[in-house]
């Protein structure tokens, strides 16, 4: 398996991780460990949010760029790491 696959596997098996998904530039999920409807929902919503966040950062300073986005909610934490063409979303339940 390639290194990336291994990394994704590790992330998925990490403590507290509920699901991971890879979304492409148009918001279409490519790879996911959750069920279809949830995936599609997360993908669509987070894709828009990431674009907005990225636009915000870059508007303030065009030389800056978004590295990652963390949304912590009562139940769990959603982590979004944008890449040039893809978006990696991980939902984790931080153990407290």
């Amino acid at each position, binding site marked *: 398996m390639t290194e990336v696959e291994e*990394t*994704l596997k590790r992330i998925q098996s990490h403590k507290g991780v509920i699901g991971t998904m890879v979304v492409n530039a148009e918001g279409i999920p490519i790879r996911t460990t959750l069920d279809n409807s949830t995936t599609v929902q997360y993908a669509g919503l987070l894709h828009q949010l990431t674009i907005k966040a990225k636009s915000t950062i870059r508007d303030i300073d065009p030389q800056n760029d978004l590295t990652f986005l963390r949304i912590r909610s009562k139940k769990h934490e959603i982590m979004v790491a944008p890449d040039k063409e893809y978006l*990696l979303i991980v939902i984790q339940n931080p153990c407290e």
Partner: protein
Amino acid sequence: MGRGARKRDDDSGTEVGEGTDEWTQSKATVRPPDQLDLTDAELKEEFTRILTANNPHAPQNIVRYSFKEGTYKPIGFVNQMAVHFSQVGNLIPKDSDEGRRQHYRDELAAGSLESVKAVLSDAEILEEDEEPKEVEMEAGSQTELPPAEVAETVIEEELMTPKQPKERKLTNQFNFSDRASQTLNHPVRDRECQMEPPPRTNFSATANQWEIYDAYVEELKKQEKTKEKEKTKTPVAKKTGKMAMRKLTSMESQSDDITKVSQAAKIVERMVNQNTYDDVAQDFKYYEDAADEYRDQEGTLLPLWKFQNDKAKRLAVTALCWNPKYNDLFAVGHGSYDFMKQSRGMLLLYSLKNPSFPEYIFSSESGIMCLDIHVDHPYLVAVGHYDGNVAIYNLKKPQAQPSFRSSPKSGKHTDPVWQVKWQKDDMDHNLNFFSVSSDGRIVSWTLVKSELVHTDVIKLKVEGSTTDVPEGLQLHTVGCGTAFDFHKEIDYMFLVGTEEGKIYKCSKSYSSQFLDTYDAHNMAVDAVTWNPYHTKVFMSCSSDWTVKIWDHTIKTPMFIYDLNSAVGDVAWAPYSSTVFAAVTTDGKVHVFDLAINKYEAICNQPVVARKKTKITHVEFNPIYPIIIVGDDRGHITCLKLSPNLRKMPKEKKGQEVQKGPAVEIAKLDKLLNLVREVKIKT
């Protein structure tokens, strides 16, 4: 009267017929039967006829009812007018409103200004003519009239002349009627045709500052590319450096879909780990043990992360090294100290940001005994193996194999390599490192044109071993080097520790002679390190349970510490010249601060879980107040030093706290002087 009139009419009728003899002849007067017979006298009676204005047909006795008297009363006067003929005509008087209006309209339509002028001029002439006439006629008093008459004539003239030029038809206002006719309207029919609509897609874009910036940057890149292509064909290495967190750059050559997420995946893995080990990360950053205030010179070590890897499970940690550039990256060498159980080795590089999985993994056939990371090129790792080989790993390249390797041909050691250290580049800017091994050789390896070339620097000899042996059969017993360290400032000077317990001070330039020898320990010297601040002080530790601090000008140690257990490693703290840590095989970490307590450790803490595990190495992080400790089970524990262990000299009132090497040196000097004095005395 009426009858008489009629009679006359008849008579006249007969009288008239003079010329019409034919009439009278044939016609005979016929007397009606009821005619009155009158006598002649009555016939000749004259009746007078009076012509009056009375209407014979008008009634003479109209009565009207009078409400006042309540009777009918005859009307005195009866209207005698008899209308014989009436016709409604269409002539209107000129002076009436309608007449004037029509006249005005006619004038406008004809455009009769000129004619008016002409008229006026005529009128003027007329006026002039008439006026004198009038004046002659009526002497002065009736001057009003003539102008009026003249005006009338003028008006008449005016009225007259416009009529002449105009010849258009006047619409008959009274008998004008509209006539319309309508053609048949054809029924309207709609005709449509529809094509297939072109395929549509939604396009949306935003024009932000950064999009414009991106476009410019791309343009710039294109230009640069074309320039480069013109010049030479140099491979463009893609650098995706975002934040300083990211490690060394890598060549992106894959086109596989999922591998493009590698960057993001790395970041996410770290995030996930951060979440899991959130409290640890917080401790690492912010926790300062408050209890240290009450502990009065003692300190503690707070355990932070634990690093371990399944693949290196049964291998002991044989070497630790922090990366000089990236302060959260450290290298771990795995191998085995057991002579009997020799297996493979591993080189793992961990980052504090991801405690669950190493960043880099390298595997080797022989156990790794030591490693060192180059200061200027933090991607080069020199490694010494149990089988005597040395190798260089390049972290930038994704290969699993070392970039350079020594071999039996290229002069590898015949015994395990116990320590390697990078040196400064030589004259030709070639990379260069030293290695020491049990075979007694200290070898300098130089990387010349991608090949490792070795140069024997020194061969360790055991002095005083040639006894009772005649010349010619002198066996040069070779000392086994187990540790060495190079002086920070004096480049050529270095120390070597041997298995016999001796420490030799050597110079790179003298290959046969030692500069100095110290009878350090009773057992093998495990580690030798120079003090990072004080140029004269170094420290050594050994399996004979002792740690000794030396001044290299003095043959006897300054300080000796007995730790009740074989000491695996010692390390000076980078922030203070008087702090150092020692690890023992009973799983304890001892931290000393000579400035606080010259005789005892200020921290004495068991660190590993099981009592049987031996701690093999310890390293201080150059920036953060943490140490990493490796044990023989392949685990690495990261510990935070409590404030007491990091004490800086207290500032005196009014004086600034001087920080810097000078202060540290002075501090240590003070201590040393105390000891020396004592020694001199005794």
